[in-house]
């Protein structure tokens, strides 16, 4: 071996040295590092899983939100339609009532006018009657002298029995 230039001692020492180095390296550097890498990898996987879950959840939420929005939109439209119908109905009712009231007022006014007209006509007739009576009274007072009065009385007395029968 020596003739090949190999120093057995040195080789042994180097083998020992290498073995020691190998064990130390494996125990204190390679294994923790490997563990660290594995942990990191695991963390990465978990992270990805969580991310995926979050994404999925986000999608679900978006879908739910969409559904909710659609539902709300539908409800809003339905409410709006219902409200419109109610308003229309109320408008019709109010219009009908207003028409009825207007008709009632019209009829009342007509009646009132008719009554007033009749009252006025009656009043005019009354006044005319009074006036005619007054004119005739004055005329007769001037026209009838005592002789005529006596003749009238005679005539009345003569016809009294007939009148009473």
């Amino acid at each position, binding site marked *: 071996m020596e003739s090949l230039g190999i120093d057995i001692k040195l080789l042994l020492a180097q083998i020992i040295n290498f073995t020691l180095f190998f064990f130390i390296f494996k125990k204190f550097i390679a294994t923790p590092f490997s563990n660290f890498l594995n942990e990191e990898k695991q963390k990465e996987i978990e992270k990805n899983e969580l991310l995926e879950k979050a994404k999925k959840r986000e999608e679900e939420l978006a879908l739910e939100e969409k559904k909710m929005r659609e539902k709300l939109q539908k409800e809003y439209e339905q409410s709006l339609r219902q409200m419109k119908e109610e308003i229309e109905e109320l408008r019709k009712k109010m219009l009908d009532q207003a028409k009825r009231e207007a008709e009632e007022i019209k009829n009342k006014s007509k009646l009132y006018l008719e009554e007033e007209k009749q009252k006025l006509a*009656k009043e005019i*007739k*009354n006044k*005319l*009657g*009074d006036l*005619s*009576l007054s004119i*005739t*009274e004055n005329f*007769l*007072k001037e026209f*009838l002298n*005592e002789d*005529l*009065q*006596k003749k*009238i*009385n*005679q005539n*009345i*007395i*003569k016809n*009294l*029995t007939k*009148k*009473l029968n």
Partner: protein
Amino acid sequence: MKIDFRLKEELRKYLEKKINEKKQIVKVISVYPLTEAEINQLRKSLPMLSERKMVNIVDKSIIGGLIIKFDSQEIDLSILGQLKNFKNLLIK
């Protein structure tokens, strides 16, 4: 206040007498005072009143004719009454 029974009775009799007297009176309203002849003629025309006392009241507002009042009745034969009837007819 309590009124004595006899006094009450007397009062009642007196009032009855007065009422009867009033009932017996026939009021004749005319424009001028009626003559005796006219009153007699009137009595003849109204036999049911011939026994009663007639009182002549002068009232120029009746214009002409006569109004005879007895009991609760009134016979209006005045011109004013006729005119009023005519006016009522006109109004109707």
